[in-house]
């Protein structure tokens, strides 16, 4: 090291620092003081400092607070340093320091402080140039804004161009102004809050009602409150309707295959649930094949035909080997297919283990659409509703517009006559059974996206899907659709009222009673036979 004539670099640097500090303490006085208070003050002083820094809203304040949150802010002697890797900057002066001093001390951040800090950082992001950053920050602040942030919020509000963010900012500002000293400001705030979709605004207004003395303000607040409550109730209703449709679509998927095998062919297939389970496992295997590839998200598209084919093949094998010998003996069919289901469950347990397996959602199915604050419609559910419609359309086309469908309908209506005019009934049975089984596989593919995939998956759907088919009536696709949606709604509405288990019991009992009244289901085919 080259020591010069002026007594070495150390003295020189100290001198410069002192001069600089003297100069800057004048120019940056308020912000510098706040930063020092943040570093050296007591807990309360630190919080004051955070509030002051947020209110100033300068880029530097943001930088310092971020450093504190990241644990990069230190004290060394009288100085406050921001240390990033090997470089240190004086937080007050902004001066670069060549080497990081060894004797630096952490600034302790307790939980209370951390909370304040989090809100403060979110508030500072309000003035970020990127829309997405601002949007996420606004959402964070909806429930955690502090009165000290009001100036900043106002500033952001004035600068904001995006209408959606601007509306939310207005809500935040109004919520903060509720505590204002100025009566006019409070009145404006109460009126403004009537537009809120946020459940926490309700609590805020209730608290306001308790504290406010002014009667006119109080009545305004009540008006706003009822407006919010009305809107929230609508949101809740929408949520229930959505979950009902979603449950209905799941029931529909699970029952559609059964509607073909039982409804059209009269085969009681107790192994139907296991065919669903096989579809789910086929999805799992497909997913594993795609693992590590860049196109992982596409596995679900590939899994759809795979699940269909695997289940359809298993179903056709069952039909050829067991079920065809039992046509016309429904009770025996019931027992033997139950036996098949036991074997399939144990086989899957032996191959894949008794534990549930993990099926990951593709990226495009995670997350959801937020219709109101707090009410999110998950993409996976939306996709399944769409998928159920797609499958339904496919079956309808197949049954009504193709030769196979014509044969299936013919055999359903009059097996002997169909056989006489040359329909190969045995082969049609196999194909129809394969079709029903394949649809069960599709249901399994869909269910793997929203629930656990394990050997017992099918057991939990078998009772439900039979209920749908029985309720809907035999031989009718439309009946199945109505029954699935109806059960979905009945279940969810009762669930909101009495809890899930009682809802389920009530629905089962309703079905038992319903069958007494209409033994052939809602949409029975008209016929003259005394006995079926």
């Amino acid at each position, binding site marked *: 090291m080259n020591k010069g004539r002026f007594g070495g670099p150390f003295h020189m640097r100290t001198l410069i620092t002192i001069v600089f500090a003297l100069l800057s303490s004048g120019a940056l006085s308020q912000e510098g003081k706040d930063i020092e208070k943040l570093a050296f003050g007591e807990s309360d002083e630190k919080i004051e400092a955070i509030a002051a820094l947020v209110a100033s809203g300068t880029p530097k304040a943001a930088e310092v607070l971020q450093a504190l949150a990241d644990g990069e802010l230190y004290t060394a002697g009288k100085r406050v340093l921001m240390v990033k890797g090997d470089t240190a900057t004086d937080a007050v002066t902004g001066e670069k320091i060549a080497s990081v001093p060894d004797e630096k001390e952490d600034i302790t951040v307790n939980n209370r402080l951390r909370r304040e800090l989090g809100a403060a950082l979110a508030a500072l992001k309000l003035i970020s140039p990127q829309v997405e950053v601002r949007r996420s920050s606004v959402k964070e602040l909806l429930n955690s804004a502090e009165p000290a942030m009001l100036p900043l919020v106002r500033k952001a509000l004035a600068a904001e161009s995006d209408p959606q963010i601007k509306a939310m900012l207005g809500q935040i500002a109004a919520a903060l102004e509720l505590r204002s000293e100025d009566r006019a400001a409070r009145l404006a705030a109460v009126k403004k809050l009537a537009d809120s979709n946020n459940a926490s605004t309700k609590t805020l207004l209730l608290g306001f009602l308790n504290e406010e003395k002014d009667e006119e303000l109080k009545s305004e607040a009540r008006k706003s409150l009822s407006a919010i409550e009305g809107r929230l109730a609508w949101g809740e209703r929408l949520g229930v309707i959505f979950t009902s449709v979603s449950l209905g679509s799941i029931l529909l998927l699970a029952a559609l295959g059964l509607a073909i095998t039982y409804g059209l062919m009269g085969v009681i297939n107790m192994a139907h649930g296991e065919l669903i389970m096989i579809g789910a496992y086929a999805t799992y295997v497909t997913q594993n094949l795609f693992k590590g590839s860049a196109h992982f998200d596409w596995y679900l598209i590939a899994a759809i035909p795979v699940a269909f084919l695997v289940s359809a093949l298993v179903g056709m094998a069952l039909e050829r080997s067991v079920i065809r010998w039992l046509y016309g003996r429904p009770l025996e069919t019931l027992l*033997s297919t139950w036996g098949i289901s036991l074997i399939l469950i144990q086989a899957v347990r032996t191959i894949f283990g008794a534990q549930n397996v993990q099926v990951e959602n593709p990226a495009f199915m995670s997350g959801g659409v937020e219709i109101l604050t707090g009410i999110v419609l998950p993409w996976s559910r939306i996709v399944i509703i769409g998928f159920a419609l797609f499958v339904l359309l496919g079956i309808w086309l197949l049954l009504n517009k193709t030769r196979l469908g014509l044969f299936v309908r013919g055999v359903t209506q009059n097996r002997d006559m169909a056989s006489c005019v040359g329909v190969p009934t045995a082969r049609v049975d196999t194909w129809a059974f394969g079709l029903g089984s394949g649809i069960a596989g599709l249901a399994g593919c869909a269910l793997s996206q929203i629930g656990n995939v394990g050997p017992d998956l099918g057991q939990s759907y078998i009772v439900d899907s039979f209920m749908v088919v029985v309720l809907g009536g035999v031989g009718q696709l439309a009946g199945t659709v109505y029954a699935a949606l109806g059960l979905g709604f009945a279940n969810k509405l009762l669930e909101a009222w009495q809890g899930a288990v009682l809802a389920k*019991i009530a629905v089962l009992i309703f079905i038992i009673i319903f069958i007494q009244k209409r033994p052939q289901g809602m949409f029975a085919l008209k016929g003259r036979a005394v*006995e079926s």
Partner: protein
Amino acid sequence: MTSARLYGPKGWALLGAFAAFVFVVMPIFNLYVPQESSFHMSTYWVTLLGKILCYAIVAVAMDLVWGYAGILSLGHGLFFALGGYAFGMYLMRQIGSDGQYRQPMPDFMVFLDWKEFPWHWWNSDSFWWCAMLAVVVPGLLAYVFGYFAFRSRVKGVYFSIITQALTFAAMLAFFRNAMGFGGNNGFTDFRRILDIPIATPQMRMILCATSALLLIGVLLLGRWLVTSKFGRVLAAIRDAEARVMFCGYDTMYYKLFVWTLSAVICGIAGALYVPQVGIINPSEMSPANSIEIAIWVAVGGRGSLAGAALGAGLVNGAKSFFTQNYPEYWLFFLGAIFIAITLFLPQGVLGLVNRFRKS
């Protein structure tokens, strides 16, 4: 004359041999032959046999409705479990203050912080009251359910499916703690019956012998019923209900009677079953259990009461064997029986025996 109608000489001989085995041979080898002796019969076997005898009673009850009236119930496990729960209430009260919490209330009620017994536990410390409940509750439920179902002429597969829905709904209900039946743990940890400790070899033997007595009684009653004129009408209903109706019979009451009787028998079997296995919980009501009852009957031979009892013994014997030695193959085996019996042996094992005898 009556006896000749019930069973032939061979039948009576077999029944007598069975009675002699359970009432004479077993007590001697279990209670009077010392444990060190290689002829000693362990209490494990007594309990296992007692359990299987209860299943056999259920199978006979099931055969009455399925084999003779053509009604396949997938909910007989419910009646069995209801009988078990009714008698289980008494057994819970007999624990007294010996439970884990040392309180006069059953442990699960202490755990839920209940201060008083729910209304349906009224008088549950009386043996006769609970024994009566074990008969009346399944009977009443079956009567009401059957009345509406048969009146609307729900039959065949539809009937099977709604009985399944019924037992499934009941299972969900009994899983709830609020029902006052111990939630998913059910009743367990029994100590005494009529103030006599349950876990002694003597008590086990008595319970097993009672089950055997009941089985013999049910077999005779069932046999008497199905060989009577009533039984012939039942069989006619099974084969062609519409024709029987056109002949002027009101088939509903025939079906309702045999259905309710069957449920009552199941309830009594359940009441005997619970003290022997020492536990009753809602999984007894699972639809899978009820379907298994059907396969006992199918294995033994539908349309033969003794066959049904035999089938229950065979399937449950196999179950004990497999679950102890090859637990992972039990479901394969059970599934294979389901398929093989329906495909190749519609008359069950007895049908096979008869076929050999003829040829």
